[in-house]
Each structure stands twice: as C-alpha cells, then as structure tokens.
C-alpha cells in the first residue's frame, strides 16, 4: 500500500474541507477500500476517516415514517438498532459478510462503492430511499448509475440515508460462499399502495428494479403473483459462479421467497 496522510475529522464540515484536495478520498470502515489500496488499485494521498463524526452515526426514525441511518453507521449497529422498527433491513445488515466485517463496514461505504453484488443497494433501491450528502438529497432511482457507479461527485460524502419504512419487507440473499457477497439477492418491500422489488448480484448494470414483479405484487402480494413472470437473462452477470440463465431464475425464486418471508 502506498503511504498517505491520514485525517480524522470530528465534523462533516471538517471532513468536506479535508476532501478538497485532488487526491483525497473518504474512508468508511475500510473493508473494501483498504484491500483495494493494498492491491494498489487506489492510492489516495490523503485519507479522510468518516468514522469519528458523531453526526454521521446512529439509527433513528422520523415523523415521515423513514428510518434515518447516519452515513458512517456500521452494519452491526443497523442490525441491532433497526431490529424492531424495520426487521427486513436489520436482517439484511446482519447477513453482510461476517461479524468482523459488520463491525467496521458502513452503509455509506457500501452505497458509495455500489458493488454489483452488494446488499445495501438492494435495500436503498427497494425502499426508494433518499441518499443525503453534504450537498444534496438524491433519490435512490437517480443515485445508482451502473456497476460501481453512482451520482456522487468527487469529494461528496453520504452523510445520511433515509429509508421509508415498509409494512413488510424481506431480503432474500443467495450467498456466494467464497466472497460472502450475494450471488443474487432480492429485496421486496410492501407499502400501503405499492410494492418495490430491487435485485442485486444479477445485472451487468448493477442493482435494478424488477418492474413486472412490482406491478404484479402491487395487485396481489402473494408469491404466486410472480409465478408466471420471467426475467430476461440478457445483460445478466455470467461468471464461473453462475450462468446468466441461473441468475435470471434466482431473481424470480428470490422474489417469491422474499414475499413469503416478508415481515
């Protein structure tokens, strides 16, 4: 790993100021960035830690029925603190990687990275979350822009994520056992008048909404409602772990299981 200067600001304003330099980069839990730097695929000159900023920590609910999660909140904290207010999300957070990864990795880091097989992007898109940064609020539908690509600008940091709390939700993760990421994962959320279905680990374009399933489940929230639908395997990820056809089938199976398990 190349050397860098390390900054540990205590406020969002100080973090934003420290990120002004050309070669500065934010550090969340480091669970993706540190291995990337070891491989010299990233070599920032300044690394700005976001994990000592009290305003970016914690989980709460607001009057609009949203769960608000500080951008530097760890997966372990979400698993614990969202357990009663939003069990579907707590379950998702509790099954990311392994306990040590969950004690460091953060929601902001996961959403900023937008790995095509990561779990949180499915929850953010599957709830229609708002990604709040130091500059603006971005809806999940505008935020995800393809594999490892997001609407974030250079030096922009995720300070908070607000997820509308559904009546029921579940994230069905088919684990890729070596990486512990999702081989394919489906997040289903049922709201009063609509249902959202977001899929990770399947498309070459990263997380996406399965519109046909959303329409069918909005009519009838039962796993049978999607039984006759199918997903086009074109543009699905095809690698040594699974073919595109297999992933397309997993999208449907994962959706049906999520509907059955939603709470």
């Amino acid at each position: 790993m190349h050397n860098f200067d390390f900054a540990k600001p205590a406020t969002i304003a100080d973090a934003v100021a420290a990120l002004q330099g050309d070669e500065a980069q934010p550090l969340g839990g480091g669970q993706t960035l540190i291995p990337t730097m070891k491989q010299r695929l990233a070599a920032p000159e300044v690394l700005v830690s976001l994990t000592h900023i009290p305003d970016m920590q914690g989980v709460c609910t607001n009057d609009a029925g949203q769960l608000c999660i500080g951008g530097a909140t760890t997966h372990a904290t979400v698993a614990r603190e969202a357990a009663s207010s939003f069990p579907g999300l707590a379950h998702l957070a509790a099954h990311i990687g392994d306990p040590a990864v969950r004690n460091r990795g953060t929601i902001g880091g996961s959403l900023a990275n937008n790995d095509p097989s990561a779990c949180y992007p499915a929850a953010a898109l599957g709830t229609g979350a708002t990604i709040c940064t130091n500059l603006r609020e971005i809806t999940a539908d505008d935020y995800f822009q393809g594999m490892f690509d997001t609407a974030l600008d250079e030096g922009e940091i995720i300070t908070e994520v607000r997820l509308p709390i559904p009546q029921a939700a579940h994230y069905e993760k088919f684990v890729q056992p070596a990486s512990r990421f999702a081989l394919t994962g489906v997040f289903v959320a049922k709201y009063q008048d609509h249902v959202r279905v977001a899929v990770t680990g399947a498309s070459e374009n990263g997380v996406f909404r399965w519109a046909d399933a959303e329409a069918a489940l909005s009519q009838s929230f039962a796993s049978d409602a999607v039984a006759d639908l199918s997903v086009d395997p074109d543009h699905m990820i095809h690698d040594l772990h699974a073919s595109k056809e297999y992933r397309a089938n997993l999208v449907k199976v994962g959706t049906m299981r999520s509907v059955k398990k939603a709470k």
Partner: protein
Amino acid sequence: MTSISLSVNGKSVSGDVEGRTLLSAFLRENLQLTGTHIGCDTSQCGACVVHVDGQAIKACTMLAAEADGADVRTIEGMENADGSLGVIQQAFQDHHGLQCGFCTPGMVMSAAALLKDNPNPTEGEIREYLEGNLCRCTGYHNIVKAIMAASGQDVSKIAAE
C-alpha cells in the same frame, strides 16, 4: 508519522505510525505481539481478529491510526492473571480445537466476542458466527465443540472428535 496512544491488553502503549500502518502490523512489529496472525492479509480468513473497544475486527483491515485512543485486546490478553490458559483457550486444547494453530488466535477472539453477546449459543449460531474465520486443518467440528464447552454446555452428544 503520527503518534498514537492506546490501551492493549490493559496496558497503555504509544508509538509513531505511518498513515498506511495496519493495526496488525502495529501489534506484531511495534509491540512484538505476534500472536495476532496474518493469514490472507485481504480480510478473508480471520486469523488476525482482535477486539477494538470490545468488538471483533480484522486487524489486517483497520489502520493503526484508527485505533488511536481505543481499548484493544489480543490473544495475548486472553490468558488468566496467573498465566494459565483462559477458559476458551483451555477448551480448544481439551477438545482438540486446533491442529497447526495458525487460525486459533482469530478463532479464540471471535469465540470470545460471540460468547460476550450470546453466552449460550447453539451449534448453528457458532457456525454462523465463525463465517469469517477459516481453518485449513480441523474441519471445524472440534472448534465448534470447544466453543460450546467453553460456554458451559454439555458437548458429550456432539459426535465429531
């Protein structure tokens, strides 16, 4: 270089570190606490698990500078005050929870973190909790058995030896 001060196994320590110095390197090289092992160095194997402020983390994937001011516990801090093996360590020995021993420090630290939150885990809970700790020797059964025994549960019905 930045200077950091922290508590390691109850003792105050300080040292100068580069930005890129990993907590694992600081423990092993600056403090000579070589019980924290480096297996993969890519956050996959869990040989380097230590506790930072009571939470299990992979020391190969945390910067030393991030641990400034923290309370760190390593495998060297798991023995009893008189130098004998701690309960979990002793259970690993009694139940053959190790062969080459390379993964053992991480296994013991993960087990300690689990038992702190869940003093009476089921076999399934132990297996799930150890998802980030890889062992190339034992086949895991005796590790799981050792952790159940360390939690005071009857392990006589668990088949694998």
